[in-house]
């Protein structure tokens, strides 16, 4: 497959990138590592008029302490991020999430910014133009191309539904939300900072609250006392998550004082699970079980990724239980096959 032709701008600074983006209009597209954008262009999901490469923007490549947080630039590569020793124990969720994206080759090019802005995905949408023509396209790209999509088309995942159900399959977003990260967006007009959770919308077609003229500059990541990330995928490499469970807790003795649990890949956005029921008491088996029940109810997997949706829902329960037991300090050897899979595949 060959890409159609486009104009190319290699931005030299954050300001230059923001200017080019504002000038480029709706058919301009930012390029981080390009690991998602380039295949999507070949499949004609996007036919951009202008590509703005962020590769040479030095400001985006920084990773440094910022107050009590870590400030991680949008241009930091996932492979480098997962291996960076400035990430402490409290950042385990992020280290793990970044370390299990795709494959080593892809992590060597993929950026954090691209991962957080990753387009929602769907088995009806991540296909070639010819394939999509065979199903008469879908709501996300009714005339074949998603960028500047006109309205119309059917969502084949739930025909009759007025919305698009494409799935948020970024690994890092749930992990960073669980850690309480905030994100800073920059445009030619200025910049704004918001909790990372607020970057996402429950909408397969307009999945970000980012304005078209804004680019993601960095995230600020506080450390939690303990955090983890469990990823479900069929194979030990390459595959996007079909379920991600990110969890972070603060403990006073064995009593939970703060907790954040976020589910990935079971909706069009990362799903933040309310954790009130966990607070003020130890992570006992009953509390974990009841919480896992709640989380499972919030998970809304549909038939548009790998694996059957009912089974993904079932594993949500097992994963939430497993992740919380891991945070409680249970011996991983007792957590069963699925847990060993996490441990075996994830760099420490």
């Amino acid at each position, binding site marked *: 497959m*060959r890409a159609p032709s486009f104009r190319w701008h290699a931005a030299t600074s954050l300001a230059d990138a923001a200017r080019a983006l504002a000038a480029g209009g709706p058919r301009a597209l930012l390029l981080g590592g390009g690991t998602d954008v380039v295949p999507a262009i070949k499949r004609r999901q996007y036919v951009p008029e202008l590509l703005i490469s962020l590769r040479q923007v030095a400001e985006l490549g920084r990773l440094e302490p910022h107050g009590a947080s870590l400030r991680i630039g949008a241009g930091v590569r996932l492979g480098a991020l997962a291996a960076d020793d400035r990430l402490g124990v409290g950042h385990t969720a992020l280290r793990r999430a970044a370390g299990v994206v795709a494959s080593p080759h892809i992590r060597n090019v993929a950026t954090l910014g691209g991962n957080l802005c990753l387009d929602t995905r769907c088995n009806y949408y991540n296909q070639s133009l010819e394939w999509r023509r065979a199903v008469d396209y879908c709501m996300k790209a009714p005339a074949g191309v998603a960028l500047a999509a006109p309205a119309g088309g*059917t969502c084949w995942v739930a025909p009759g539904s007025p919305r698009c159900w494409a799935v948020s399959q970024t690994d890092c977003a749930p992990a960073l939300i669980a850690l309480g990260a905030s994100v800073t967006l920059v445009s030619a007009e200025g910049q704004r900072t918001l909790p990372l959770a607020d970057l996402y919308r429950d909408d397969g077609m307009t999945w970000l609250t980012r304005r078209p003229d804004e680019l993601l500059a960095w995230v600020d990541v506080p450390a939690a006392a303990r955090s983890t990330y469990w990823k479900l995928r069929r194979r*030990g*490499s390459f595959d996007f998550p079909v379920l991600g469970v990110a969890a972070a807790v603060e403990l006073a003795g064995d009593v939970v004082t703060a907790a954040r649990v976020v589910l990935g890949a079971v909706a069009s956005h990362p799903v933040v699970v309310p954790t009130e029921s966990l607070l003020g008491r130890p992570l006992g088996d009953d509390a974990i079980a009841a919480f896992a029940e709640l989380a499972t109810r919030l998970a809304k997997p549909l038939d548009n990724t790998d694996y059957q949706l009912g*089974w993904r829902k079932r594993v949500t329960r097992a994963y939430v239980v497993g992740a919380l037991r891991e945070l409680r300090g249970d011996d991983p050897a007792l957590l069963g096959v699925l847990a060993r899979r996490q441990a075996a595949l994830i760099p420490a």
Partner: protein
Amino acid sequence: MNIIGKPRRRVDGRAKVTGQTRFADDLTLPRMLWCRLLRSHLPHARVDGVDTAAAAAARGVKLVLTGADFPIPYGILPVSQDEHALAQERVRFVGDPVAAVIATSEEAAQAAVQLLAPRYTPLTTISDAHDALATPAPQLHTYAEVGNLHKRVGFEFGDVDASFASAPHVFDDSFFYQGNTHLPIEQHATLAAVDGDGKLTVWSSTQTPHYLHRALAKALAMPAAHIRVIATPNGGGFGGKSDPFHHEIVVAGAALRTGRPVKICLSREEVFYCHRGRHPVDMRLRTATDACGKILAMDLETLLDGGAYGSYGVASTFYTGALQTVTYEIPRYRFRGARAFTNKPPCGPKRGHGTPQPRFAQEVQLDKIAVALGRNPADLRLEQLCKPNSLTANYMRVGTIGLGRCIDAVVEGSRFRERWGKLPRGRGLGIACSSYLCGAGLPIYWNKLPHSGVQLKLDRSGGVTAFCGATEIGQGSDDVLAGLVAEVLGIDPFDIRVVTGDTDLGPVDLGSYSSRVTLMMGNAALEAAGRARELIASAVAAELQLPVARLGFAERRVFDLEEPTRGLSFADAVIAAETRHGTLGTVGSYRPPDSAARYKGGGVGPSPAYSYSAAVIEVEVCPDTGWLDVTQVWIGHDIGRSLNPASVRGQVEGSVYMGLGEALMEESAFRRLPPKRSDALVHKFPSLLEYKSPTTREMPPCTTYLIEDPDPQGPLGAKEVGQGPLLPIMPAVANAVFDAVGVRVDEVPITPEKIVRALEEAARGRPARVGPTGFPDVGWPEPLRVAPPWEGGDGKAANETPRRPRPDKDAKDKQVPR
């Protein structure tokens, strides 16, 4: 022996690991044009026309071709010449080629394809074999035997019903084996060019240059003698490059029309549309046993979902029954099989061709029999293995059989007897066995010619060149050729230049399929090398004044066995021979022995020899989520003799890997949109990312035992290893899952979802299994009745009707299987 039997570097290895091997996609020629195809976006439609004007006028476009340019049908089997290079009046699946654009660049060709405007009238979509049974009209092909059933076959060897009526136990199970695809890393590519004198050369990633040669001659209406096919080294084939393909014929036609070289490289998605992969098969297997589980009779029904065209499908259908008999003694056997046409990419031969599906059924059912009768499944198998040098109920001639030793090896290695049935819940062991052909006894078109030929050229440089039509598809056939010739002539395999896969330069070899190359090319190579050795020996004997019998060939010398310092270097020996005999060249050829099966259809299954394999697999299963990990594999393979043990191990372990993919995750899944809203039927995920195939992460430790029991039919005793070791893997996984959590997944792939479903069934007090609950009514015709050898049979059918005369076919194009 100096070379054979020792693990050594393959002759083609260095070029491959250093990136120097030139695959079809690496070739470019001056003034080369590029081709892209327009493929149907509808699963089934009448083609009312293609408006080509805009595409033809687009920048860089040199030629636009449609069905009208390729009116002659072709197909790999003489009985199903149902393909055209570009669609005629009908498209039959999403991906069926309709038109072609030839342009100065790939981009220009692709852009112009978008400008082609085909006009279609949609027809009813037929999604699978059950749908085909229920929907006899519209027919996909008017030549189908009935409705949308392409072909039905049936045989009965002895009175099966009588055996069932009196048997102490009858086991009756239904299975479903999902389709999957070959997934070679190299995508198909072809380059065609016309020489100065008007002859055509086609370079292609094909496993069967000889069959492609024939198809090109037919479809282009050109003398075969004016066509040269060069099979470039294949980056994997596994059966997926064994048919003549649309794109090959289109670029050849385009090169002839433009006078310029024309190239095409398929995208991964297009490779999924070429397919010819594993047929999805519904099966019902009934087995009658005595009190201890010894088989008295077997009754097998299979229904294959063939996809949109014939391909090798008729042979595949026969293969779902033919090899059930060569593993265990089956005194009476009935087999009925049918293949349906559906609106999907055509199925064909994938590693194991037609046999993994019934093998899965048989080996899983044997496990059920063992459990039901309280027997150890290893013993149950050992007690009823076929006898060496015997005839089976369906007249397959079994030679050596090392299966008992394979079973012993894996049982011991895995401590199966001590551990099976005794591991804690969630862990389990499973065993399964299999057998496979070492080459089909018959070619795909009827003839009595050699199946493989080898030609050697030796000259005064001491150089030896081996020519053969065989095709290197990564399996190591070039190395087998060099190794055997080197062994006979006492030189090093790296001294030999191997010229293969070229229809102009080498004698015919039928191709790299049916595990035939090592045995057939190997025997031809031994004959050619033996003759060369005789020529050299007679000359050296005269020069040294010694009897020929006293000469040895080793370490690049020809010498006196009794006084080894006396002798000539190999190069001097060749000079002596050329001086004495003139220009040196020898040939060897091979044709398999005639089959004992003399009934119609008995042509599929006979082979000069059969290989055997046994595997034990250990799994861990999460009883809550059904998550399944394969933790260890032990596999024994009866290889006859390992010509190069390093290559043999590679094939065994590669088969294990591919088998695990089929067992655990691979599936050619299709999506039928809600029929009320759409006729669409699409491959669910024609991509390397979403068509799930294992990575190195999923490959468990694998212990391989090579069992050597040289078979007199094989070259130096060698049997096949390319396909057989795949076969026991899928049933061994299924059996291990049962041992781990007590549920049966009577389907492939065996996924966590299915395990959970079976566990839920069990929790509700229902049978602890998932899988089909019955077998559809196919409307079987009367089977051919053939008495088994031990019931006085002579290999002929009692109720065979004389063959219908086929005036439209010339004699040499007769149907095979007979």
